């Protein structure tokens, strides 16, 4: 029976409460109530994708854990997603795992990084993703539950839970709640997905891991370079500099984006400006104990030798335009924006949303697929296929 089809007087709130408590008791919850997932509900999720339930979509070989499409559906249902959100969850998951940091220990990191999920295209209106006022939440089921589903998959499918494999020092406010639509209608620039090569009008999802989001409130000037300087000052703050290079996702409000565009700045111009002007003096870096840069691939920072006087030089913080991606969201009601501190490096790609399945698989066909698959309900912990992620030299050490 579809949700909402039960007359109000026939709802059983006490049964619902008992089922919610059961889920808490199993240790499945992120702290908030879960929707108890049933076979019938999860089958409605699986009917919204052409992908096979047994398809593996993620593996943490070092933990002996894996996630299948079906297990993702169970977690998405428990997160409160509607079945029709499920293709967005799958695309967000895939987009996130194009980010090397998500595969290289990011979920276990003391940094406690948060996924940031950006939705482009007509799916925003079709499913009700907020892309205007308060886009970072709360208040919108699609935004809130898609992000939450990712967190539940990490917790339940990968078994990465706080105080165990999740070693976040403080974590991040809003971890597993950051998902917004890009405000394409009020952005002066091409959508993020189009910039990555997805055709205009095609729904797509982009994602990366963040360390934090910091506001830049500049309602003070119409001079584009003064506005950009205000962003640069936040981007180069020493507290966030732990490696030689830094990556920030600048999420402009429509007002800031339009001010820049009206002054002749394309998105590429803004990125080039940041690469050129996001500089920090060696003297400042010395004062923070971060003036020496290691020679590893990431170039970890440390305090330089005390006897060496800091040089009168400026260090570039943003090495390339790929390190400073730009999106636009929020209401056009104030010139305030967010600098979102990227944990590793965004893949600079987007995942196109799959079209609705041409034909829904019948419950019988889905059951047959489940029975015939050894991987069926999420593979056994003993499976130890070689882990192409874990052995990746590109995995980010942190």
């Amino acid at each position, binding site marked *: 029976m579809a949700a909402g089809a039960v007359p109000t007087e026939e709802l059983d709130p006490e049964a619902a409460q008992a*089922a919610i408590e*059961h*889920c808490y008791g*199993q240790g*499945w919850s992120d702290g908030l109530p879960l929707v*108890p*997932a*049933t*076979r*019938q509900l*999860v089958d409605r999720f699986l009917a919204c994708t052409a992908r096979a339930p047994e398809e593996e979509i993620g593996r943490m*070989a*070092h*933990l*002996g*854990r*894996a*996630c*299948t499409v*079906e*297990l993702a559906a*169970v*977690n998405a*249902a*428990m997160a409160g997603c509607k079945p029709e959100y499920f293709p967005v969850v799958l695309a967000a998951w895939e987009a996130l795992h194009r980010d090397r940091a998500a595969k*290289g*220990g990011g979920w*276990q*990191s*003391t940094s406690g990084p948060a996924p940031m999920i950006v939705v482009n295209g007509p799916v925003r209106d079709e499913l009700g993703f907020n892309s205007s006022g308060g886009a970072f939440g709360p208040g919108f089921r699609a935004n809130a539950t898609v992000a939450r589903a990712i967190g*539940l998959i990490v917790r*339940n*499918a990968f*078994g990465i839970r706080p*105080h*165990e*494999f*999740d*070693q*976040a020092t403080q974590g991040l406010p809003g971890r597993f709640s950051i998902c917004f639509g890009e405000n394409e209608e009020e952005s002066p620039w091409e959508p993020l997905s189009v910039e990555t090569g997805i055709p205009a009008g095609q729904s797509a999802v982009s994602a990366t891991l963040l360390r934090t989001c910091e506001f830049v409130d500049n309602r003070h000037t119409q001079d584009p370079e003064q506005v950009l300087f205000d962003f640069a000052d936040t981007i180069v703050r020493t507290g966030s500099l732990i490696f030689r290079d830094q990556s920030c996702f600048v999420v402009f409000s429509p007002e800031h984006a339009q001010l820049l565009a009206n002054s002749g700045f394309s998105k590429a111009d803004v990125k080039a400006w940041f690469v050129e002007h996001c500089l920090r003096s060696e003297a400042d870096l010395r004062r923070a104990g971060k003036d020496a840069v290691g020679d*590893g691939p990431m170039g*970890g920072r*440390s*305090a330089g030798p005390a006897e060496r006087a800091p040089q009168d030089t400026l260090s570039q913080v943003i090495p390339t335009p790929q390190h400073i991606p730009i999106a636009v969201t929020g209401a056009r009601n104030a010139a305030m924006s967010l600098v979102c501190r990227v944990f590793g490096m965004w893949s600079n790609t987007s995942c196109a949303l799959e079209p609705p399945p041409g034909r829904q698989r019948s419950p019988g066909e889905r059951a047959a697929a489940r029975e015939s698959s050894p991987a069926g*309900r*999420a*593979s*056994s*912990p*003993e499976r130890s296929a070689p*882990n192409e*992620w*874990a*052995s*990746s*030299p590109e*995995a*980010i*050490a*942190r």
Partner: protein
Amino acid sequence: MSTILDPTGGQRNGTAEAPLAPRPPDLRARTVGLLDNGKQNAGLFVEELGAVLVEQHGAGQLVLRHKPVATVDAPPELLAELAAASDLVVIGVGDCGSCSAAAVADAIALEQLGTPAAVVCTESFRATAEAMAAVRGAAGYRYATVEHPMAGLAPGQVRARAEGVAGEVVALLTVAAPHRGAA
């Protein structure tokens, strides 16, 4: 009446008993492998610890190897080579969420190759080290801890940490102490 589905898919942390390597009675003339996981000060720490094992506990040769990525398991060929070149291995330093777990995973892999191993983590990462031991079928696997942090210490402080933990490491590598505690 319908059943509530399990979002873990029935996956649990491993419980099988992984075999651990037999211990020698002491370190005398044994070749000690040092696995530097690449964290800040880890290389210096394992070298200092190796030096203490030679100077004070009679260890023979030292073999130093570097892990390419701290946060995930060491490549199997690196562990196989290290196990072949060493009688015993010391791994350090687990001082982050994923690298402490990965250090324990490497140690258990070495144990399964027949080489006794001792992991040194900072005390802040007990929970994740122990969770990984359980996942790898060695719940209760023992390891040594040093005071947190390790990164940012001056060389003399790193040496002091190595001297302080050497006795515990020797105990883990020899028959002097049980190397699997209560799970």
